[in-house]
């Protein structure tokens, strides 16, 4: 299981970002050391291909170097910011591939297997840090239907209508499950120190 910097490291990471805005190379290198594995693991989770994952991680770090001054602490932790960039870029890449290839139907079986395995596989992990255990507990409290929708949305990179098509459920049902599931996740994670 991926090891993330502990939450009490936030102050250190905020300081690193502040120093990066002043173009301090040492700060950037330290942030790379802290984040590279988890960002790479995240990109690999989405893209499955090493070359694609490396490109995404490279882009994210360049973005951090160029845009550190735009980071707003009020919008989340530095790690969350970096993870969100990684996910968004990974999904952009997946969607670009899908648009160009139009081969989803041919490989639907494979794709469905990969996507549905996302949270389920993660929940079965045994080597959890305290942080990931808390997260697992929170995810485990979601209903299977909510978990499925969030899994397809977060790890599958599908749009809301694509999720509805994939699950054979009305769009309104999918949207409601996404809302309730994510609100529940936020509540449970918020309960923890």
């Amino acid at each position, binding site marked *: 299981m991926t090891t993330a910097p502990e939450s009490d490291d936030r102050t250190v990471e905020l300081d690193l970002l502040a120093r990066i805005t002043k173009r301090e190379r040492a700060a950037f290198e330290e942030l790379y050391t802290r984040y590279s594995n988890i960002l790479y693991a995240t990109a690999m989770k989405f893209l499955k291909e090493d070359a694609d994952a*490396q490109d995404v991680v490279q882009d994210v770090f360049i973005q951090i170097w160029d845009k550190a001054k735009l980071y707003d602490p009020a919008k989340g932790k530095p790690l969350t910011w970096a993870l969100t960039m990684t996910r968004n870029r990974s999904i952009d890449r997946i969607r670009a591939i899908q648009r160009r290839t139009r081969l989803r139907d041919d490989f639907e079986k494979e794709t469905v297997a990969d996507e549905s395995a996302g949270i389920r596989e993660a929940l079965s992990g045994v080597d959890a840090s305290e942080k990931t255990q808390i*997260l697992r507990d929170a995810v485990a409290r979601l209903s299977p239907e909510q978990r499925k929708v969030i899994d397809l949305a977060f790890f599958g990179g599908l749009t809301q209508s694509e999720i509805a098509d994939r699950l054979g459920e009305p769009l309104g049902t999918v949207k409601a499950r996404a809302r309730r599931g994510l609100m529940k996740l936020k509540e449970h994670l918020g309960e923890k120190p």
Partner: protein
Amino acid sequence: MTRDQIEELAALDALSVLEGEDLATWERVRGENPSALRLRDELADAAAQLSLLAPAATAPSALRQRVMDRVFGGQSSEKTVTEAARPFGFAAWAAAAAIVLLVLVGASATTRQKESVVVRDARPDPQNLQISLEGYGDYAKAKAHVLWDSGQRGWYVQAGGLPALPATHSYHVWAVDADGAVHDCGELAVREGGLARSFVQPGDGISSMQGFAVTIEPVGSSSPAPTSPAVLISVLQG
């Protein structure tokens, strides 16, 4: 708009799944309602933590140097992993069949194999090039597609129906350029169910690509050309 509706749009945006009319509605709501935007950020923060459930992986050591070079200047600053290959001229696809067939099926292929070549795709759209590969002989049920990604400057190879190979051999992708020269595109690893996917870049020496093929090669082989007949091949009607 009710609280539930705002929560729903915020959650969907946090998951990056909004589209169409809902997206337009959300753009308006979040502009008028700072608390909606705050909620969206909180939900995005919760969602982003799902990334921590990704299986552990260690970033390749070479990536660090590449990132540092890119940020602080260096030899590799101009390229990403998937940026290296040049695009091919789409008009050149018209000549692909004969070259690919001769080079990759060549003398070792049977007449029956040559006659069974099927044209699947040769669309003259440089933004969306896609070509199908057909399987032959024992591999007749296999199929593959090669797709040009202009954004990433390379080719995606996706294959299905590939039989498992003994540990001593692996599937290998080859590209053929305008001069008929064969370029090694690397191994095509087969996953469960005979499915395989790879991103390939034959290298900087290619000015235009003409076709692709898949052969079976000994593991670890450094042969610059195929050592066996193609089991999958892309061809055009001749």
